[in-house]
């Protein structure tokens, strides 16, 4: 119920704001801990500056807490570097908790390619536990 309420508020909020975007994203990422899938919500200004919340985990997209799934709950900040035509580049570090208790910082850069007004795709590269990670995402602008 709470999730529906939050999503409803975000949807309504996105229509009330001007030149700001709320986006939902689904992504997959190859990390040193294995292949992870995740989803999240982000809020961005017209200049691309933003913040988001996200969840990612190995295996099924569930709230499993098994250590081996390395579930990550956290926030991301989105800092624009540059843009050109339908492409935008961001620094998008993530900070949050892995396996409930373990605070981690994940440096990441992201390239977003706008496909339509409401749909973008992105590629990410980052560092997880001092090893490179890479992923792709689909971003739906609400």
């Amino acid at each position, binding site marked *: 119920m709470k999730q529906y309420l939050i999503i409803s508020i975000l949807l309504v909020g996105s229509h009330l704001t001007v030149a700001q975007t709320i986006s939902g994203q689904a992504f997959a990422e*190859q990390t*040193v*801990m*294995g*292949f992870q899938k995740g989803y999240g919500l982000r809020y961005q200004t017209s200049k691309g500056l933003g913040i988001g919340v996200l969840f990612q985990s190995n295996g099924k997209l569930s709230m499993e807490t098994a*250590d081996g799934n*390395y579930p990550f709950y956290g926030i991301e900040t989105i800092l624009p*570097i*540059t843009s*050109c035509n339908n*492409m935008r*580049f961001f620094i998008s570090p993530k900070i949050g*908790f*892995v*396996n*409930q*208790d*373990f*605070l*981690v*910082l994940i440096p990441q*850069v992201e*390239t977003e390619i706008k496909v339509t007004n409401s749909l973008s795709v992105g*590629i*990410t*590269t980052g560092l997880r*536990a*001092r*090893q*490179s*990670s*890479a992923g792709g995402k689909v971003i739906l602008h609400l």
Partner: protein
Amino acid sequence: MTTSYRIFHLILKLTIAATLFALTSCEREYNEPYENFTLPEGKHDKGIKAQSLQSSTLRFEAIFDQSAIYQTQIVENQHDINKLLGFSDCNSFHHGNSARLGWRWLDGQLEIHAYAYVNGERIIEFVGTVALDMSNSYQIKMTDDAYIFYLEGFDPVEIKRGNHCDKGLYYMLFPYFGGDEVAPHDILIQIRIDY
């Protein structure tokens, strides 16, 4: 071509190159190559490495080679414990609360020790011995009230945990020579962390 366009193309190329590099190095889960840690002659370590622990169990494989044989300048320092791998406990500095596996070359063999700080008190316990040029499995498991140190082929060693914090930063601690003295020559340790 404007400067901004050049910058844009440079960033685009770098991003694509980094992505391709990362994607082509993805077959690493459970088969991660060993990482070389060199303790340089005349130093304790090679510098700071920033990494945080990601679960309550730290598992890794390590290989010591012939460079692990050393003689300290002061005889008593031969008993000092060098550090292999471990972590600081939740939101603690490592001299407050931490758990590491340590090692030393003594009496012609390479000894492995549990090395922990519990509320500022240093606790060291013998775990076992390992052969040179052989890969061995190590593990430090953190429970609510203990650190448990494992070395394959030996009984686990348990040290009571003093920190009751759960959620926070647990920073990892990497190979370090000493003790009081610095490495008498380059020492190579190969480590692979298992996730």
